[in-house]
């Protein structure tokens, strides 16, 4: 642990000497200054953890010195030393940012504890600065990969909009990394030291969604044994991220609209209005404008959400990013899985680059992960990849529903494995019973 440093600024030589000896015995690095000006020079030369500052000094008085210290070194903990008659000054000093004050002469017990607490405070402040730096490090856009013009445009928009408090609507197909972009927007915002609170709107039924968003009071409904804060309250000061916002029910749309208008809400079973201050970022893979036209999404809510739209291009529209992303996932997963892959053989990379990636970046990551499981280091080979060769449309032209894709994919894997259900199930990563159920469901042939 580094030696704590103390600067004593007092015009009385005897005070400087007494305190200097006292603190030296504690092992502190002690310096003294006889007036405000030389105290400020000492601080400019080398910062101190604590400054013990006399309030009444000829020339520059303690209050002025305190002002200057707070301007040039706000992290320094300043303790004001005062005689009984100058408590009013000491109170002004506290208002101006002094950490505490102590009356002369000091009780050694009080002085010792005050300095220990001040150092603890200084340590916490330093830790706070360090944590903020760590957050800045973590919050860099490292995970948002893309050198394509389309992705660079998205990242530029994220940087621009991030520093504002504007409501953002992120649009993009499934797997394009909408949550990652939401987190990047939060990380670029002044709210980045407060939480980003994600809510999966598609995952919960209406009643649970209400409780999830608004929280509830004790006894609000059967099973509500405790008061619980909702996501809106948890996001106070930070960012609320509504994922799959196109899935919310008409009732929740109304509730949400009210919160966005009033910036306040009432917990379920409660009466008190709770004010909240959050930045709203939403995301959806749905065409909300079409939903508004169809009458399934409220127009007024859409306008509230769609202040700054950010559209993330699908992977097939930025194919130049595929090798970059594939290498990124390979390196990230190599560390996580402890499997040392150095790269892709050219044919494998070529296949990755030609694939259409209907599941976008998430599908690419899954494909790389699967290849790393079935492949053998040091390189990923074409045969390790789960996708069909280039030129083979996947799965069928004209049919884009998940069920249609699943049906065709299962049939192909069955054919490839000569209708061996065990082998096909293993390759599909599901159990045999599930595969039998799917064969029955889709009426697939086994031979």
């Amino acid at each position, binding site marked *: 642990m580094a030696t704590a440093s103390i600067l004593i600024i007092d015009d*009385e030589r*005897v*005070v400087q000497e*007494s*305190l200097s*000896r*006292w603190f*030296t*015995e*504690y*092992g502190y690095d002690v310096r003294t200054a006889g007036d405000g000006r030389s105290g400020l020079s000492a601080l400019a030369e080398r910062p101190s953890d604590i400054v013990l500052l006399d309030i009444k000094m000829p020339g520059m008085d303690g209050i002025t010195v305190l002002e200057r210290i707070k301007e040039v070194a706000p992290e320094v903990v300043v303790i004001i030393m005062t005689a009984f008659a100058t408590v009013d000054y000491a109170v002004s000093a506290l208002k101006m940012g002094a950490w505490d004050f102590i009356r*002369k*002469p*000091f*009780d*050694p*017990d009080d*002085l*010792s504890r005050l300095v220990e607490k001040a150092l603890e405070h200084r340590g916490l402040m330093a830790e706070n600065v360090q944590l903020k730096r760590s957050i800045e490090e973590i919050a860099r856009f490292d995970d948002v990969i893309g050198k394509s013009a389309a992705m660079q445009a998205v990242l530029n928009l994220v940087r621009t909009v991030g520093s504002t408090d504007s409501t953002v609507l992120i649009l993009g197909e499934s797997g394009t990394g909408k949550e990652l972009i939401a987190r990047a927007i939060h990380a670029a915002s002044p709210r980045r030291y407060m939480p980003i609170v994600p809510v999966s709107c598609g995952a919960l039924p209406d009643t649970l969604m209400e409780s999830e968003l608004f929280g509830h009071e004790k006894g609000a409904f059967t099973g509500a044994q405790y008061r619980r804060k909702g996501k809106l309250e948890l996001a106070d000061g930070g960012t609320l991220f509504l994922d799959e916002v196109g899935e919310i029910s008409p009732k929740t749309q109304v509730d949400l609209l009210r919160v966005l208008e009033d910036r306040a809400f009432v917990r379920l079973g409660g009466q008190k209005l709770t004010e909240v201050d959050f930045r709203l970022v939403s995301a959806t893979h749905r065409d909300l404008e079409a939903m508004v036209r169809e009458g399934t999404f409220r127009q007024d809510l859409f306008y509230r959400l769609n202040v700054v739209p950010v559209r993330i291009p699908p992977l097939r529209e930025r194919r130049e990013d595929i090798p970059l992303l594939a290498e990124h996932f390979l390196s990230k997963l190599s560390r996580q899985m402890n499997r040392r892959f150095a790269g892709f053989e050219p044919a494998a990379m070529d296949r990755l680059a030609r694939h259409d990636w209907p599941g976008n970046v998430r599908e690419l990551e899954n494909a790389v992960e699967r290849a790393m499981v079935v492949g053998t280091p040091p390189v990923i080979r074409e045969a390790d990849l789960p996708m069909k060769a280039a030129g083979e449309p996947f799965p069928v032209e004209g049919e884009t529903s998940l069920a249609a894709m699943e049906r065709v994919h299962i049939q192909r894997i069955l054919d490839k494995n000569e209708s061996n259900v065990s082998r096909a199930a293993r390759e599909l990563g599901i159990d045999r019973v599930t595969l039998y159920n799917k064969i029955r469901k889709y009426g697939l042939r086994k031979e």
Partner: protein
Amino acid sequence: MPGLTLVPVGAVPAGFLSALSARIVSLFAFETVRARDPLDPSFSRDPERGQLHSTRLLEALAAACPPGDGERILGVADADLFIPILTFVFGEAQLSGPAAVLSLTRLRPEFYGLPRDDSVLLARTVKEALHELGHTYGLLHCRRPDCVMRASTNAGEVDLKPALFCRSCAAATRS
């Protein structure tokens, strides 16, 4: 280890100094512990505070100590000590110098309204003596709870620490 001279500062019970001397010899391994005539502390008395200025006492004690031969001199005052910025001190020492001084006043249980107990007073005084003498060997306050060099700013803290140096502080007093 060279010798230690014990100096009563003003009137101090003679029996008490003998007991203190015996305990210090057993714990600090001074070759000799001598007693000297009392030092008149009136020059260091602050009339407003009614206390003795410990830094002035230290200067007087150091002047009476033969320089350069490693001898130490410890003043024992049965009066309250102070340095100007603090309301009181239990004692004061010259860091890596020859002189130290301590006060019995705030080590006495009766100072806190408790019954007189000379064994408590002696135990506390031994710790303060070792602590201040430790400073004369250049020791700073030690963070270890099992070391007499741990800082103590009230009698309770004096009671909590042992009359022993931790391993590293003990080594520093020998080097």
